[in-house]
């Protein structure tokens, strides 16, 4: 039976919100803007929840076609939306977290003059993100894919007067474009070989030909991975995400933690049929994932900007999700996606609240001792920290262990790295926790010590605050409830979210993965592991997480002097991590520099000016030269003219008399 769910409303409402705010918002009073924006976020959520209620009664996948978008020859792509378990999960996350963050922003952005713009962009983002997950074909998915990129470009560059922000936005967009390049090629390959981009048809055809292994499917998969690494900030294309922290904190929470960056994971899960046919592609994904997870975590160890720590942690967590997909544990990946959405959004929002409290201070070295001053923020943050660092039974613990367990079944090596990363994670998270909330407030001293750093930090921190720090900073203050509310809700989710997929090992039913199985169940079922092993591994990872906490406790609570000394002793590593392995610099030297050089000098000057314009000029001058030669005849002297005439007369006579003429012309 086909009940019309009007799926198209889900993305189109936020779009309407965007149009209204975008076109009229500048003039409109603030409350109106707020109302429009919140409605734009709320209605989709309500509709999704409505769908959830009658979900069981649906025939899945449920597809709604709105007509053709692009067609040529035999190929055509439609505006067609599809709803299945995977989509539903994503919808819940996006609309839910999305709405909360909208709510939060009302408070956070209250004093912005670009208020209307901000919310317009946010709604625009929702529109594209929802399109992305609702799409029934790769092309429509690509619409969302590029669209969220656009939204994040606009939001990162929200404070466009700041070059750093503008640069970050541009960087994000261009790096994402590199990924999109991969996505495009993947689509071209699919069209070339299957003649369609519709999920049902593509996966159907592949399913129908068990013979297809590797071959062009590998190529497709690898190009898709390239796309995913771009969007989900994986090696080698992760470089844009840390800079993206230039954007307002809610943006970081929504786009760069909860939703957009997970699009890559979603896409891989969605296209798992293709990946399943290409072990090579899968292992690539796994390796990229684990490498990114570890690599980002290490960088996270020494960052001092609170948002950057979270940024690297996001990258690292995304790595986990990739790892999961790489070992074909898609449901685990998605599960982690969900939980991560909860606690990472929470972390960002809480961090935002902290920054808000400190009037825009983002440097942890200038924080400390906030436990008492902003208790609610503190407690919610605590929940998030525990969740991410894998303390049972919080959400992060469950999802991460699921991933590690599945990895273990596939490859011990990957597992061990993943485990190590888990330790690092809990370490840097608690480091953040301690530095922020415990000890004495270091605001003034930090200012004294790290002048230049602070300058840098301030250059980065939000303008509204820069303005304020010029006159005396506010006293530290807790955020308004419109901001705290979302914190609390997310905190609760981070705590209990895990029970959705509570593993059998602990007497759960792993409902979540079973729920997703219709979509992502791989043909080759994973080796059914015994629950003891899973239990054992869980204990190990708990231990590791605990150890991570312990180190953090010692270094940043018990012996606050120690880190500095360590830093001096392991100077090499320290600066290596501190400077993020100089990856940006290396890219700059190896790729950007040469391209610009070639563009300006080789092509711009040498070829265009030199060869092409030069060629034209030479041609002109040659003609003129001949002209001068001809004019030379014109000496103005009658006798010369007569001589000229006589000469050619004689020549003509001779020629015509001896009948040479006929040989001397081309006919």
């Amino acid at each position, binding site marked *: 039976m086909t009940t019309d769910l009007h799926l198209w409303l889900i993305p189109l409402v936020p779009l309407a919100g965007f149009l209204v705010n975008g076109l009229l918002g500048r003039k409109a009073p603030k409350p109106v803007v707020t109302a429009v924006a919140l409605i734009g976020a709320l209605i989709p959520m309500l509709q999704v929840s409505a769908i959830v209620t009658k979900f069981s009664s649906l025939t899945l996948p449920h597809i709604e076609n709105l*007509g053709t978008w*692009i*067609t*040529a020859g035999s190929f055509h792509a439609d505006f067609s939306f599809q709803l299945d378990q995977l989509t539903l999960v994503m919808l819940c996350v996006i609309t839910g977290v999305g709405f909360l963050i909208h709510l939060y922003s009302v408070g956070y952005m209250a004093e912005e003059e670009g208020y209307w713009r901000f919310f317009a962009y946010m709604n625009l983002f929702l529109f594209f993100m929802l399109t992305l997950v609702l799409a029934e074909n790769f092309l429509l998915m690509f619409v969302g894919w590029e669209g969220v990129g656009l939204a994040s470009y606009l939001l990162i560059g929200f404070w466009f007067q700041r070059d750093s922000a503008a640069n970050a936005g*541009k960087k994000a967009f*261009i790096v994402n474009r590199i990924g999109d*390049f991969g996505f495009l090629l993947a689509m*071209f390959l699919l069209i070339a070989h299957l003649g369609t981009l519709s999920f049902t048809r593509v996966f159907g055809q592949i399913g129908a030909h068990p013979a297809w292994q590797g071959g062009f499917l590998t190529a497709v998969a690898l190009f898709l991975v390239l796309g995913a690494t771009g969007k989900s900030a994986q090696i080698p294309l992760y470089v844009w995400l840390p800079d993206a922290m230039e954007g307002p904190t809610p943006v970081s929470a929504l786009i760069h933690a909860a939703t957009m960056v997970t699009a890559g994971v979603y896409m891989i899960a969605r296209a798992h049929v293709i990946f399943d046919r290409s072990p090579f592609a899968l292992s690539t994904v796994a390796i990229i994932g684990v490498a990114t997870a570890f690599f980002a975590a290490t960088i996270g160890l020494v960052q001092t900007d609170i948002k950057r720590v979270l940024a690297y942690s996001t990258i690292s967590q995304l790595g986990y999700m990739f790892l999961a997909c790489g070992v074909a544990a898609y449901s685990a990946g998605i599960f982690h996606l969900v939980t991560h959405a909860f606690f990472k959004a929470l972390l960002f929002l809480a961090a935002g609240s902290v920054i808000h409290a400190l009037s825009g201070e983002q440097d942890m070295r200038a924080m400390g001792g906030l436990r008492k001053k902003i208790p609610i923020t503190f407690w919610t943050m605590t929940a998030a920290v525990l969740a991410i660092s894998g303390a049972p039974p919080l959400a992060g613990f469950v999802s991460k262990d699921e991933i590690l367990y599945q990895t273990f079944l596939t490859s011990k090596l990957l597992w061990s790295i993943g485990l190590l990363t888990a330790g690092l994670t809990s370490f840097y998270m608690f480091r953040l926790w301690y530095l922020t909330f415990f000890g004495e407030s270091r605001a003034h001293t930090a200012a004294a010590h790290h002048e230049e750093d602070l300058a840098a930090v301030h250059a980065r921190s939000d303008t509204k605050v820069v303005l304020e720090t010029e006159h005396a900073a506010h006293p530290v203050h807790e955020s308004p409830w419109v901001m705290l509310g979302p914190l609390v809700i997310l905190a609760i989710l981070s705590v209990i979210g895990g029970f959705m997929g509570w593993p059998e090992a602990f007497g759960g039913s792993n409902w979540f993965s079973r729920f997703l199985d219709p979509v992502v169940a791989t043909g080759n079922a994973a080796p059914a592991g015994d629950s003891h092993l899973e239990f054992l591994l869980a204990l190990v990872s708990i231990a590791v997480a605990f150890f991570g906490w312990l180190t953090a406790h010692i270094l940043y609570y018990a012996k606050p002097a120690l880190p500095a000394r360590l830093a001096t002793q392991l100077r090499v590593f320290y600066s290596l991590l501190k400077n993020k392995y100089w990856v940006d610099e290396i890219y700059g030297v190896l790729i950007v520099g040469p391209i610009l050089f070639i563009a300006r000098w080789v092509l711009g000057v040498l070829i265009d000016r030199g060869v092409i314009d030069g060629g*034209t000029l030479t041609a002109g001058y040659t003609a003129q030269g001949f002209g001068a030669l001809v004019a030379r005849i014109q000496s103005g002297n009658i006798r010369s003219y007569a001589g000229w005439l006589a000469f050619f007369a004689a020549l003509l006579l001779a020629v015509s008399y001896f009948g040479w003429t006929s040989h001397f012309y081309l006919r």
Partner: protein
Amino acid sequence: MLFPWLQLQVPENDVPLTDHILTLITFVPTAGAIVVAFLPRKGRAIQAFTLLVTLATFVLSLHLPAHFNYAQRGFQFQENQPWIASPAIRYHLGVDGLSLWLIVLATFLGPIGVLVSWRAIDTHTKEFYFLFLLQQTAMIGVFAALDLFLYYGFWELSLVPMAILIAMFGPNRGRQAAIKFFLYTFIPSALFLVAILYLYAKAGTFDFAQLQTLLANGDLGIAPHVLSWLSLAFLVAFAVKVPVFPLHGWLSDVIQEAPVAMAMVVAGKLGLYSIFRFNLGLFPAQARAIAPLMIVLAVIGILYGALVALAQTDMKRLIAYSILGNLSFCILGIFCFAIAGLNGAVFQTLNEGLTGSALLVLVSFLYERYRTYDMSLYGGLAARLPMLATLFVVTSLALIGLPLFNGFVGEFLVLSGSFPVHPAWVAAATTGVILSASYMLWMVQRIFYGKQSSLVLNRPAFDLNFREHITLWPMAILMLTMGVLSPYWIKGIQSGILQFPIDVTQTTVVAQRHAHGFVSTHMLPAPTPADAQKLMGGVQ
């Protein structure tokens, strides 16, 4: 169906003025020009009148898509009267899916051109608008003419107003630019004329349809090598006008010097349409032979244009090179002979005409405010001119092919269509999307973001006025509409494409051979003679 009206089909046979609609569309501007010649120079009478005329032309041209029979192949709205007895020249106009939207585009850009010149042109208004209208006629004529002589007439005629206007209004190097442009296009056209005359000498007719059949049946008894020379003569003349990579020497100078209304129409559609109509229509085999070379040039052009644009500091030059890049996409689409690619090529031609013009209009508005095209002097404008900034960003997004904008549809069709034919080259071309994003966003940032430059601070900021709004919004809206409702355009275009002898559905061809992984080189367009192969080098 969300857009049922998309399927609307008007099967009317006896619609008023269907018989002479093309003559009307073509020569209303000329009539207007003659009137303009007698209007007083004082006041805005000339502008207003020209605007009226161009609008009228546009409205008339809408008659075509409205009453076009999309089901039917071949030419419609034909007019075919004898003009000169001998040489046998006929006044033969006609429209098919190929030229349908190009004509509408040309007429659409008419009012835009007037509006954008409204203040920018304050001296010699009479000359300007006279020639402007003449140019309109020439362009429309090129698209509508079906008699080779008539076509050539309009083709050459389109040079003159352009050249004169560049010479008259070029701010600093106008004369050189004008002469450069003229010679660049005129000398190849001379050889083109030789080819036309040769055909006439052989066939005794200039009529496109007749020539097509004669050539197709090989009734003219022209030696193969002669045929390829003829097609080359055609192709070079068109390629210069497009322009195709090594022949683009005139483009940047002209875009820089020409008044915006002219710069908008100087490149692209005329040449590309002609390649379609004649190289594919008359010399399909030769076109296939040269295809490998053209594809290489196209790919080079895409990357070259994007990279050089990356290095520009002058807005207009940057736009010029981006135009070069975008047009190369069309060339790529044409010479891969895939149905989707061809559709995309035409669609992309429309896009370029639209988006490129919008961009030029925008920078000209900036120029009217700040009297410079040098990006390094701008900065932080978004804070002062939000509307202009918004529209600028929208246009840029359309140009870099963001989905739901027209640019994406074109690029996607071209690339996806061409991919099976030349995977490697098309992949290379696809990197163009990265580069185009880079230079456009960089331009946006340098003009609108960051600190407000002294130039910006010292000038009073006034955002778009009414005239500028009505100039820009139609284009912006059209960009979106074409991006979302592309089938409405494609169905016309495709009906024009299908007339060409192409192996229609490339993709299904591939579908049969998916078994062995990547598409292999015997996907290349039908037999390509050795010489072309050599030119190609390592493509396969």
